[in-house]
């Protein structure tokens, strides 16, 4: 396995050399494609990564493949999608509201929504789909509502009552609640989305516009999704003119494409967080002064420039940088080795010991960032040894357990998302063992608040505590990167999974 991954690694650098060697001419246009007025028609050929063993035809299954997720997002409608000022845009639900208890939610299904076979969508379809996700697919984590509390009030209204107040429900349901017909085969691709399936082979699909869609009419006639096992193969296909758009292609490909000038780089900010995680509950980083010192050791600019090849932005130790309530008034931390050294001395931190930083090659730049941070730590007298693990070992032995490790998260427009998953003391996947009553209270206030001002106040209290006390060193945020020919226009910049929203894309002639 070691030999195999070395081969793959060498392979990618070789393929990278290929890109530079071949694409030698052509002008570049950083912002979008060839432009002009939006034009109707054409077939967009899209490449997306996907491994064969993770393939699924079930929209309620585990959608680990980008290629599967893209197909599902175009064929099916979820209740809500990413977008808009709050990060939540309507889709199958045209509107929603919550009672004063912040627990009783009602979602209204879009006027005129119908399945591709012509049947109108009714609330019972939505209810059945959500229950299938929670009960049949063992995926209660995707829908934080008890299944018996999801009911159809009438044909167009779905009610959900959460156990505790949850002001974030519409956000948590984005791109999750793909709706299939009640009682019908859920893997038949009979969706309600902007495109309907014409052909499907092995994770590759040809989709054509669904003229009966309830939303704004898409401009493209068709979208063809081709699945690629590796970024190298996808880049070769883009170079060879076999696809027009390579989704989530990574920074190396972007740098090379930018140098060659033949393709346009589409950047989506706040896409991936690669924090360094320090254990708070016990161990050498339990003292808050040590954690602050580590945060002051990081040279964030260097990390973004080198580990992310410049495709990212400096961050400030608060997770969820794309949140509508993200607090920009917190002072930006920068490298300060003198203060770091004195904090470490004050805390009696053992400078003779060697500390292991576990890392995993899960996202572009993750291992490089760990190595670079270890070099920076040496300047403050802290000896860090970087150990790379494979995913199996990492999630078994390191995640939520080790004193010091790197992590990758792909949802970054919600402070509350992180609070629920890894920050609140009661989370079973609390990555640092942090237990702050003040933070739990602030999070509870956010969930119970129904007016935006109160939500913002609670969110800022959460962020301040995270900034001061938590176990996270979030040095930067990686951009999401798609590469395309100049003819492709109208791509979404929504963070997280905005890249799947291709219904607004169009092709210049």
């Amino acid at each position, binding site marked *: 396995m070691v030999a195999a991954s070395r081969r793959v690694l060498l392979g990618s650098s070789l393929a990278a050399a290929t890109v530079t060697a071949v694409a030698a001419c052509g002008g570049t246009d950083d912002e979008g494609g060839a432009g002009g007025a939006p034009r109707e028609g054409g077939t967009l050929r899209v490449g997306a990564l996907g491994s*064969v*063993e993770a393939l*699924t035809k079930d929209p309620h299954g585990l959608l680990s493949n980008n290629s599967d997720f893209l197909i599902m997002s175009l064929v099916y409608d979820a209740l809500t999608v990413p977008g808009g000022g709050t990060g939540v845009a309507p889709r199958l639900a045209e509107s929603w509201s919550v009672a004063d208890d912040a627990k009783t939610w009602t979602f209204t299904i879009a006027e005129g929504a119908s399945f591709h076979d012509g049947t109108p969508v009714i609330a019972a379809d939505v209810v059945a789909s959500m229950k299938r996700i929670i009960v049949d697919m063992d995926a209660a984590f995707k829908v934080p509502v008890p299944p018996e509390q999801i009911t159809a009030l009438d044909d167009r209204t779905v009610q959900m009552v959460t156990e505790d107040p949850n002001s974030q429900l519409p956000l948590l349901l984005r791109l999750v609640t793909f709706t299939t017909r009640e009682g019908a085969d859920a893997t038949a691709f009979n969706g309600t989305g902007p495109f309907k399936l014409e052909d499907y082979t092995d994770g590759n699909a040809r989709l054509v516009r669904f003229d009966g869609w309830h939303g704004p009419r898409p401009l493209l006639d068709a979208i063809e999704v081709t699945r690629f096992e590796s970024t190298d193969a996808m880049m*070769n296909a883009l170079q060879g003119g076999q696809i027009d758009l390579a989704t989530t292609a990574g920074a190396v490909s972007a740098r090379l494409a930018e140098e060659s000038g033949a393709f346009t780089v589409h950047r989506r900010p706040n896409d991936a967080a690669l924090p360094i995680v320090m254990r708070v509950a016990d161990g050498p980083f339990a003292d808050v002064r040590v954690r602050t010192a580590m945060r002051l050791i990081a040279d964030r600019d260097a990390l973004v420039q080198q580990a992310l090849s410049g495709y990212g932005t400096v961050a400030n130790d608060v997770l969820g940088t794309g949140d509508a309530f993200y607090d920009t008034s917190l002072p930006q931390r920068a490298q300060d080795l003198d203060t770091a050294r004195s904090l470490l001395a004050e805390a009696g931190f053992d400078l003779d010991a060697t500390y292991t930083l576990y890392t995993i090659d899960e996202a572009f730049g993750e291992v490089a960032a760990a190595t670079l941070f270890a070099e920076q730590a040496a300047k403050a007298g802290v000896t860090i040894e970087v150990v790379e693990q494979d995913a199996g070992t990492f999630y078994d032995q390191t995640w939520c357990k080790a004193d010091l490790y790197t992590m990758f998260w792909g949802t970054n427009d919600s402070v509350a998302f992180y609070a629920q998953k890894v920050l609140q003391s009661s989370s079973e996947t609390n990555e640092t063992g942090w237990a702050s009553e003040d933070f739990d209270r602030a999070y509870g206030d956010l969930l119970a608040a129904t007016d935006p001002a109160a939500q913002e106040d609670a969110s800022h209290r959460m962020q301040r505590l995270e900034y001061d006390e938590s176990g996270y060193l979030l040095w930067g945020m990686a951009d999401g990167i798609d590469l395309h020919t100049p003819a492709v226009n109208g791509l979404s910049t929504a963070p997280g999974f905005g890249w799947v929203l291709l219904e607004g894309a169009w092709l210049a002639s």
Partner: protein
Amino acid sequence: MIRFLAALAVRAGLLLVVLAAVYAAADALPGDPVRLAMGPTASPADVEARRESLGLDRPLPARFADWLSGLVQGDLGTTVRGQPINDLLGDRLASTLLLTGLTFAFVLVVALAWAALWSARPRGRFGRTSAVGTSILVATPEFVLGTLLVLVFALVLGLLPATTVVGADGRLATPLMLVLPVLALGLPHAAWQTRVNRAAIAEAAAMPHVEQARLDGVPERRVVTRHVLPLAAPTIAASLATMVGTLLAGAVVVETLFNYPGAGQLVAGSLESRDTTLLVSLTALCGLVVVAALVIADAIRLWALRGRR
């Protein structure tokens, strides 16, 4: 015949031992396949519930026995993600066998012709070029060769497609998409096999009775077909048979590079995702192919040595 059947039984027994060992080893690797499949957002309770519904909470011997009885009935079970392995493997194994089969034929023909020409004039310019050329090719990993082939034939010359694209009917959009993968996989193997063939032919040609036949004035063509090739055949067949294994291994790399829809991509994926059932199913099918190749080589050796003992 009895000797042949005994060898067959030994090979089949060995395959069973290998399968049990692979199953146990894959299971012993650190890592939880269900957690890996569900990702970090799933709660421990969801992971546990899924493990139970997949039957992964049962002890290892019970799971292996279950899988083995399924194998006999032609049902390989499901992946950790709940996909039937039969569906996953069906077309893919056929694709991989098409790629490796074509490559095998390519290697067989090229290596025989090349070795014959080389043996005819071992000290000529062709012989000297071949000695260096085969060494370089043998030492070139498939992914390097594949990348260079893509660069030259697809991206610069534009003669052949860079990656494999499957049409709506599940077939390759054009058979030309097989050319570069076959070359990338086949050339290093052909070079190696050429050297084996050349050595086997040289060794056979140096045997006293072959020399004698020449001195007796037997025509050269008859010397080659009646004396040299039968002597060299067991070595050549054995080498070709063992090559089947390395061809399948090389397919893992080549299929990924060319996005070829074969089973090779599954091997790497199943190990990474700790999907023991999928991994052992792949091992079983590849093992059957390798065993079949070895059995054919056994048969060729017995045929070539007939009456010579």
